[in-house]
């Protein structure tokens, strides 16, 4: 038997470290521009709307909708061998930015573009939590 496959984990560049630090505290953090008032993701040094350097990290509400989604059946990386099929989605946050993520806790056959979703965090290790999304409980 060969050893268990290593899980692929993010190794964030400098500009993303605040995002992952916040995620560890179960906060979904995005950058907000003080000059033009817009938010963006993935992280970068300058605002992707106006190139201003005057920005701050804000906690997103963690609510959004599925912009689109797919269900992965093929095992591309051996770590996912016992995870398929799983859902990968692009989620549009209420604040505007779109994030690549997984949808958990929903039957893949029930997924639809436009569906309301809410952030949830998978605690991977003492240093890392990965933000994912699940169906928003109906009120």
């Amino acid at each position, binding site marked *: 038997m060969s050893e268990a496959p290593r899980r*692929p984990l993010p190794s964030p560049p400098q500009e993303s470290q605040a995002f992952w630090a916040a995620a560890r505290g179960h906060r979904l953090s995005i950058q907000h521009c003080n000059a033009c008032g817009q938010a963006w993701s993935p992280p970068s040094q300058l605002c992707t709307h106006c190139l201003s350097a005057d920005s701050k990290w804000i906690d997103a509400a963690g609510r959004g909708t599925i*912009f689109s989604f797919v*269900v*992965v*059946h093929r095992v*591309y*990386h*051996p770590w996912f061998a016992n995870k398929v099929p799983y859902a990968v989605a692009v989620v549009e946050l209420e604040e505007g930015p779109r994030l690549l993520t997984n949808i958990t806790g929903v039957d893949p056959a029930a997924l*639809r573009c436009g569906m309301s979703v809410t952030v949830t965090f998978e605690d991977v290790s003492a240093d890392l939590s990965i933000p994912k999304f699940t169906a928003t409980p109906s009120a």
Partner: protein
Amino acid sequence: MREQSKRAEANRQAIAQTMQIDLTRQFRDKCAIVGVGHSRLGRVPGVSALDLQIEAIRNAIEDSGVRLSDIDGLLCRGPQDVYCHHQLVGARLGINARFSTSVDSGGASQALSVALAVMAIQAGMASTIVVGFGGDAWSSTHANEDARLANDTHGAKRPKEFGLEYGFTGAVAAHALGAQRHMDIYGTTREHFCEIALVCRENALRNPDAQMKKPFTRDDYFNARMVVAPFGLFDCSLRSDGAGAVIVSSAERARDLRQHPVLIKGFGSFNNTRGWFADDNMVHTAAARSGADAYRMAGLGPSDVDVAQIYDCFTYMVLTELEDYGFCKKGEGGDFVASGALRMGGALPCNTAGGLLSEGHVDGMLHICEAARQLRQTHAPARQVKDAEIALVSGHGGNQVCHASLILGRD
């Protein structure tokens, strides 16, 4: 202030209009494809991408009747891990070149290179330019499991976050996101994707050089394993070893050469560089503006096109590009393909050599070769689109957002 910005806008529009007129005058029908060649195709173990490229170029030179010493331009591209591929091509051809580079827009690179060749010739920078691509995707991904994994997950070439930790692995999943969104918005179905896969396979079966030799049916399509839903096995293009090349020269010179000239009537390029996830780029692709520029330069529209070679890395891309090129309205691509339009004898025969889905994935280079061959009207009758006068070629790639279009015409 408002008056000033109005004037600035009027100015911009005037400049844009002038540029369009000049583009048309300078480039329409000024250059031609004078030679076409391809290498062995499919599984060609033990031959490098570079040697396949040289094989295709040799065939294109022989086809054209130009001499090797006439070639003074190289717009050649190879696998992504090859540095300055065009220089290596020059070394193996044993020639120096006035204009030489490798374009870096993925599957859009080859159509864009034909456009650049026309620009370079019109600028007096070169007279006889080879546009080529050579790849070894089959061999390099079948060498071992590590090679396959590096290819599928794009190894070190991609950002190390917001991807693989979610099990997201590049091209298949990215295009599947677009397909799913199109399905949810417009009611497009896998039946429509199936029709595109069937058209390409049937065309490949008439092409003796195509990688895929076996027929498949609608049942085979639906019974095949899912890869990344909504894509199953037959929605995905091939991994191929192989190369293609064309030679571009002035239209004047083309008329003294061996083959019937294939005029480059128009070209266009657009890049949704804000990204595949931005705006609604997954569904409204850069083919729209790329195509509009090509039509304008050619002085033609979608109804003038007799045969189309549409970049088909995945079935869905053909459907959405057909809409973006104006062959039908946005959202009506499903009905359009279901009508049988893409079949030989249909309203718009498409990917007539089998495409990336069934002929071989040589990054769209073979789409350009096939368009030229159709316009020469020299195919065997079963493969020939009758009286083909105008062909459209699309190139798509570069993280799904780079696009280039060519409109070619029989002289």
